[in-house]
């Protein structure tokens, strides 16, 4: 007895001092500073280059406000001026152009309130191309999954600083899809609020393609390596992630940066990264290479980065990577076989009388379908109005189970190869 209680005591003490306590902190901005944010990366890819201007915003606000009505231009050392036009909150160069090696470029921004900003002059970095991207099975922090590694090599040993972005696209297959759909048509007579009409689907709803962009800063440097060779994990996907359940594609974009651009992104990611309990990094305002032309103490956020760019795409199927393994589950609750309890939820007797036995679930079924919360799967093998006299039991599922357009896109991307 004494022994066990002592043991318990130790555990309490240790839990108290090992796990300590991290709690969310309710925070509102008590001293907001409205500052311009300039995102400007131009590359050696011939295209309409894009520059984004926005403003800082309060924590309680939803999102950033685009800075409109500004004049944006990039100049080079030969006196060429590339003008930018405002387009959906973005500033897009009037003509396609690419950064050339040997030239220096400078960014100029003049906002509608008359303030002007310019960057330091920047040069294009070494043009090193992404040589390969591969997908390997590995594990990370004890979780099995697939990693996407980027490989690159610069024999001149001058690239050194790399930043990555990726766009990943994966196929979604709705598990409870049928070629038919039920639409709700309201009416004003009788107890029923409306009729359900079965009809053939008019658009693709079974196969969709979801695309996500990377939102973290992904950086690597070969500074402490013996040669300028990158073999770097850009993305890791756990084997249970539905993203790789069918077919998956990733486009990895490599930006070779100069030291100061790299340092800017590195610091940005460092001061926003998660902290361990007992060690914190000193946060602070991070100055980039863009300054106000008038007031040097004005805070300007952003970096004008002239990077050499390359990209590569790969595809793989789940079975290529994890043969004979259980595919990841669909991210929504769509039971393949129904237990008795689930049957009550998904198999609904379609009638509207209140005193009937067995009980009617017409209001539930009609309501869920009309609100687009649920989708029809089966129970009436004809087209047209579903009779509501209690002869039909409808099988319905959450909309996401039968219609992938509810959370994804049925547009097959142009690059997609099956």
């Amino acid at each position, binding site marked *: 007895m004494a022994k066990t209680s002592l*043991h318990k005591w130790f555990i309490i003490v240790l839990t108290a001092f090992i796990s300590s306590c991290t709690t969310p902190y309710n925070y509102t901005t008590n001293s907001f500073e409205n500052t311009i944010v300039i995102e400007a990366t131009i590359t050696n890819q011939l295209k309409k280059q894009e520059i984004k201007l926005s403003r800082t915003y309060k924590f309680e606000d939803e999102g950033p406000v685009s800075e409109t009505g500004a004049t944006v231009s990039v100049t080079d050392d030969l006196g060429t001026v590339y003008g930018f036009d405002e387009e959906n909150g973005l500033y897009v160069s009037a003509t396609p152009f690419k950064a050339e090696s040997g030239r220096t470029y400078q960014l100029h921004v003049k906002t509608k309130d008359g303030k002007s900003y310019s960057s330091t002059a920047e040069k294009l970095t070494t043009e090193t191309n992404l040589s390969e991207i591969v997908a390997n099975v590995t594990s990370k922090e004890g979780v099995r999954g697939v990693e996407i590694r980027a490989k690159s090599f610069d024999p001149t040993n001058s690239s050194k600083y790399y930043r990555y972005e990726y766009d990943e696209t994966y196929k979604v297959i709705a598990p409870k899809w049928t070629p038919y759909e039920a639409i709700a048509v309201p009416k004003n007579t009788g107890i029923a609020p409306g009729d359900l009409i079965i009809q053939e689907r008019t658009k693709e709803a079974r196969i969709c393609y979801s695309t996500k962009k990377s939102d973290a800063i992904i950086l690597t440097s070969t500074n402490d390596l013996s040669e300028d060779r990158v073999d770097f994990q850009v993305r890791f996907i756990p084997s249970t992630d539905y993203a790789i359940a069918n077919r998956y594609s990733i486009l990895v974009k490599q930006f070779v940066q100069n030291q100061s651009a790299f340092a800017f992104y590195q610091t940005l990611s460092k001061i926003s990264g998660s902290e361990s309990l007992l060690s914190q990094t*000193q946060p602070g*305002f991070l100055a980039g290479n863009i300054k106000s032309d008038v007031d040097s103490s004005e805070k300007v956020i952003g970096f004008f980065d002239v990077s050499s760019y390359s990209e590569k795409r790969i595809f793989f199927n789940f079975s290529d990577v994890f043969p004979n393994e259980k595919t990841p589950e669909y991210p929504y609750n769509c039971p393949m076989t129904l237990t008795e309890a689930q049957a009550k939820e998904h198999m609904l007797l379609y009638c509207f009388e209140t005193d009937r036995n067995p009980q009617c679930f017409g209001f539930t079924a009609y309501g869920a379908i009309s609100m687009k919360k649920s989708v029809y799967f089966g129970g009436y093998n004809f087209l047209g109005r579903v009779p509501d006299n209690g002869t039909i039991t409808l099988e319905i599922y959450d909309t996401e189970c039968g219609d992938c357009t509810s959370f994804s896109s049925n547009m097959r991307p142009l690059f997609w190869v099956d």
Partner: protein
Amino acid sequence: MRSLITTIILLIFSQLAFSQDKNSEISIEFNNISRTAALQKIETISKYKIYYQDAWFENNVLISGNYVNKTISEIVSKILDDTDLNFFIDKNKIVLTKNSIIYDSFPDYETNNQSTANKPVKSANPVFFGQFDSVKKSGSKDNNNIVLVGKESNVANTGIYTLSGYLKDIKTGAPLADINVKVRNTAISTVTNAEGYYFLKVPTEVNIIDIESIIYQNITRKVMVYSDGKLDLFLTEKLNQLDEVVVNSKASQNIRTAITGVTTIEAEGIKNIPVILGERDILKVALTIPGVKTAGEGSAGFNVRGGKEDQNLILLDNGTIYNPSHFFGFFSAINPYTVNKVDIYKGGIPPEFGGRLSSVFDITSKNGNVDKFTGEGGIGPVTSNLTFSTPVVKGKSSLLVGGRATYSDWILKTLDDEKLKKSQASFYDLFARYTHKINAKNSIEGTAYYSKDAYSITSDSLYKYSNRMVSLKWKHSFNEKHNGELNVTNSEYKFNIDYDSNNSNAFDFGYKITETQAALKFNYNFNDKHKFVYGISSKLYNVNPGDLKPKDPNSLLMETHIQKEKGLESALFLSDNFKITDKLLLDYGARFSAYSALGPSTQKIYEDGLPKNPSTVVEEKTYGNNEAIKTYTGFEPRIGVRYLFDETFSIKAGYDKTFQYIHLLSNNTTQSPTDTWKLSDLNVKPQSGQQFSLGLFKKTDYKNLELSVEGYYKKSNNILDYKVGANLLLNENLETELLQGEGKSYGVEFLIKKMEGRLNGWIGYTYSRAFIKLDSQFSEEKVNNGDYFPTNFDKPHDFSTVLNYKFTHRYSFSANFIYQTGRPITYPIGQYNYGGAEYTLYSDRNKFRIPDYYRLDIGINIEGNHKIKKLAHSFWNISVYNVLGRNNPYSVFFVTKQGKVQAYQTSIFSVPVPTITYNFKF
């Protein structure tokens, strides 16, 4: 005339002669004079010489009398009324005796009951204690130790008298309760009450009184009891007494010395102060002293008077300890059982110390017991420790060995929780000290110390760090006035990060600093007015800033060795304690220090007038082994002056200049074990500081309260700071991440102390500010637009109190209360979108503050009973840390997760933490 009389009674008996003059008559008158004055007056008007000891009389008792033609014996006997003095007259000598009557004839045992003209009527048998001693209850060898109690009377002898008195602690004067007082070979015994008072009925004879306690040294007194009497005794603590930490006021010393900002904490007494998880901790107690702060609960470092964590010199028996903390700073790595005391110099650093700007924590260890084997230990929920001491050459040399270890690792392994099972947290420290007194003029001492920590934060990394220190001292006395000591010390601090992930990025990283110092110091008491201290010291630093070894042979990680650093810091020092007048004392001196950064090394030279970054390197210069890269020198005057208004009130002022050639790199707001030390070199300048201080010190008669007010103003240069998000580990271009700026701090410290009585403790309040300025012509080297801003540890209001109340000698209650302004923090003031993710826009550095900190701890201390025949003496401590359960924010931080900014606050101990510890001694 007032010479000491040593009366060996029996001897006098044999020489007794009847005085013919003893009945001659004199006349005398005195008004309100002391008894001694009255006796002197008799001497002046008569031919008698009177022999006595001044100490027998209380001089504030005044008597009056008018005697006309009285015999000398009548007059003297009147004067001696109400005292326990007797006298006899021998010719023209009057000899006063304490207690005993000098019998002028041998008692006639046969005619005992017959009355004679010369003898009192109801005379009892006179008691000759010498006789009793030799004949009857012999037991003590010491004949000289006879205590006489009461006044021997020729008149009455009831046979049984009352002997009573107080038992007190010889050092503190505190009454001692629950102590056995008994008469040997009898059944007579008693126990002192809460006031230390005892009361015994004893027969009129020589009684051997034994006082027995396991805390105090047993004493035996032979007591000759003549009548009801009082016997107060002072007891000395046994050496193996469980230590009691008393923050030593250095009572009147604090008032007398010329230097300001000095505090001594003695290891005795901190046992009553409630501490976290029952770990007695002398350095944690230091934090309750005004002017000493820490950035947070889990922070290893101290900030003394607005100085950075690296500006404190922590010495254990003269050897530097680089990281005196276990487990991120929750516990200090100094075993409290081996410590004698800590002297903390926050201002007025004596010239013999140098190399750090803000303070010196001079920890002195206990010496072992040269006479017998003793030991003590403690069992707590986190650690257990054992210390023992043994004589090596009896009476000359001793060895003290102590060790402490945690069992947390073992407990973690037994837990069911998988996450906790994988984590690791363990530490231990070992201590050994040898002292040897060779002869009256020479002695040697040696201390060895080792501490080690291992912990893991994530499952695939293991952090380890350790301190090692060895110090040797030879003390030699040239003559009475001149003595010297030679110190040789060696210290090492290292840490290691073992990252064991599954991929090819697994690595092993190590950092190490060692220093070796030799110092010669001399004390020369030139005369009453001048006392000199002078000497020379030299210290060699070796730093290995980092080795990275990939664990996988196919790894692309390159084995990295950042080039080693070497530096030699030497100093000459001289100080004089000059007593100008009794009231004015000047303590002045200087330290001249010189530092050379030594090769082999390659140093980058950056283009003048441009910020240091990889693109402004103009040259790489290579230096050979031991070639001086750069030499810096510093002249460090230290002046302190004291003026004593009276014995209880003084004013002091001081000026100090200090240089520091070594810097701690930490990009955390608080000190952590993986912070690295960097030596000054071509690109990193030494720090320097100046402090002006002024203090008033007063000891009041009321309850012996000690009051002090001290103020200071400090300015420092080349204080190290970092660019935002600086990368400090394994950085070959470290100087490009560093900024050096100016520091400024000031404060007022108030302290009220009461060290005696049932209620004791102290209350301190400090108002202080600490600022830093990082300015440059380049925006990347500018922080907060180049203006002064508060440092991470700027906490203007700091209130702390430590109080202890003793119910009895066995039970006491103690409480700590701490209040501090929340420390500055750089707050997010908005957010922005960049590259598709949300980021936080931060305010100017340290513009806001986290909520205030307060905490109450309580503790109950129970001493084991004082039975003598116990194997070990025990002491229980039950304490509750953070009784109020205050969720003190340790930090508030902001994280970008899935593209959204989230705010978190961490707190270390947000609930009350109860602990029970058991300490024992044998």
